[in-house]
């Protein structure tokens, strides 16, 4: 644990990061910007896993291992999302959310 820093301060920081990500997810109109916001949200949750593991259960490793898995899934998700964005751009020449309506309804 970090000397002089309580668990409350770190959880405050991660909550702030999480809600900044949610704000970006809702207000942005661009697929790549939405991807960036999702990365912020995922990172905030990963820090929570690691911090709770370190502060509350220092003998265990479950939080660290789960954060490793979350990072791997996030990498796979980003690769797929980027390929979908590139494929979309080839078909409709745009990455704005409002132009993507092929699979609507």
């Amino acid at each position: 644990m970090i000397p002089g820093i309580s668990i409350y301060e770190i959880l405050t920081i991660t909550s702030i990061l999480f809600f900044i990500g949610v704000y970006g997810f809702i207000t942005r109109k661009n697929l790549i910007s939405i991807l960036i916001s999702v990365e912020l949200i995922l990172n905030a949750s990963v820090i929570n896993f690691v911090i709770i593991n370190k502060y509350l259960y220092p003998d265990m490793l479950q939080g660290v291992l789960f954060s490793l898995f979350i990072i791997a899934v996030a990498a796979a998700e980003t690769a797929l999302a980027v390929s979908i964005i590139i494929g979309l751009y080839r078909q409709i020449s745009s990455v704005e959310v409002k132009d993507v309506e092929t699979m609507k309804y």
Partner: protein
Amino acid sequence: MERIIFYSIALIMVVFAIASVTSRKMLRSVIYLLFVLCGVAGIYFLIDYNFLAAIQLTVYAGGIIVLIIFSVLLVHHIEMQLEIAKLSRQILTAVACMVGLGIFLTTIYSHEFNVVENSRTTTTADIGSKLLSYEAGGFILPFEVISVLLLAAMIGAIIIAKGAKLTGKNDKAL
């Protein structure tokens, strides 16, 4: 000393996260995200999880950021300004996020955590043996599943990204 480092990292992370979701230039917003991810790696270093910090730096700052920059350069003109949402919608979203943050913080601060004072260092060998152990509490099955998932995601990404060409060839062959 740790307090100063932690507070400066926290300040950098919050400021650059806000800049990243509000900047109207695409490439800058990605670079701001890079600073946030490096700040996260700094927090891992502070709590003594060196392996996780290295993973964060290589996978996120090295891999994902490069991938996003690549896609930005492929689909955008760099000077292009992004569209932004209506002001009323921005304010509504900000208020909703503030309310959610308030609920989170009141819940966190009203809960008593049983913090265990410790200064244990986790070595990479511990993580590796736990990850590959097949006894109770071992993580060998998720480890194998995640490797298959990564392979499937990579193949799927290749297929999706070159989809048009593949179908064109198939049509000719048929």
